[in-house]
């Protein structure tokens, strides 16, 4: 369900729902990928400056991604991609070149309920790859107290509309 770069509206905010941060999953993730004491050991975490277990930032952003894909899949089921029909080139999505400005301003703790969102923010043509552009979005997570816990600029490659 791709769009041409030119057809993507900026400032369009997508809500990705509220997600409970499960303690067991949080710790299992950190044991595998980020086994610092304040992510995996309740006793050590309690004695640290965090005062208890906090989520790995990578777990928080992985949960954002899960919410994003869930939303995307639901949209694909709901809407038929009618604009893709007919002759001529079709818009395509490409890989992500990475992220910019990842921030974890407030620790995420077990049981927190995070509300995730994505807002289209900027689009640019790629000089290195004619026919392609990059769409940037401001992606966020906010906890049940309204505190920002995650913010980053995500990027994805999309095709630019051929000149007719």
């Amino acid at each position: 369900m791709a769009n041409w770069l030119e057809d993507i509206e900026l400032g369009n905010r997508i809500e990705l729902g509220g997600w409970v941060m499960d303690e067991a999953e949080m710790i299992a993730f950190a044991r595998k990928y980020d086994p610092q004491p304040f992510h995996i050991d309740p006793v050590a975490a309690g004695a640290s400056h965090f005062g208890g277990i906090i989520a790995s930032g990578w777990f928080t952003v992985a949960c954002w991604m899960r919410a994003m894909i869930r939303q995307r899949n639901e949209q694909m089921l709901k809407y038929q991609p009618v604009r893709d029909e007919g002759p001529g080139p079709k818009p395509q999505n490409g890989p992500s070149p990475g992220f910019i400005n990842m921030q974890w301003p407030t620790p995420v703790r077990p049981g927190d309920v995070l509300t995730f969102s994505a807002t289209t923010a900027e689009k640019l043509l790629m000089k290195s790859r004619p026919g392609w552009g990059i769409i940037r979005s401001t992606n966020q997570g906010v906890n049940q107290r309204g505190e920002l816990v995650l913010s980053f600029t995500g990027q994805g490659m999309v095709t630019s509309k051929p000149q007719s």
Partner: protein
Amino acid sequence: MPEIKYYWEDFAPGEMAQFGEYHVTKEEIIEFASEYDPQLMHIDEEAAKKTFIGGLCASGWHTCAMAMRMMCDHYLLESAGMGSPGLDESKWRAPVRPGDILSITRECLERRASQSRPEMGLTRFRHTMRNQHGEVKMIIEGNLMFARRHPGAEA
């Protein structure tokens, strides 16, 4: 818990280190992505061949997580680490594939003492991840926080 060997004072700007030997498997790529990034190119070997990426590859977030694990194993667990306020950027240069053996070059870019918290300092690193053929897969730049060996001393 491992003994703490490194404090904020121990990472000097300009210093380089190389570490890690992470063997990437198809099973781990699919397992991570099934949970957190279930797109065809990350979870379905056959379908991935028909996507723009040309075959199964790791989620960018999984790639970050693997880098984090290498950083933990090779210095963070022996450091007085206090987490990270965020990262400037991560460039995903090439997809990570099954069979890749990943390693990291760490470069210390700069450090500064925290103004508000004398017990802590920030250090900005660049981590460059390559596979066994020297292909650059990912570059991450950002700050990590460490406890200071001598809180409040002149930096």
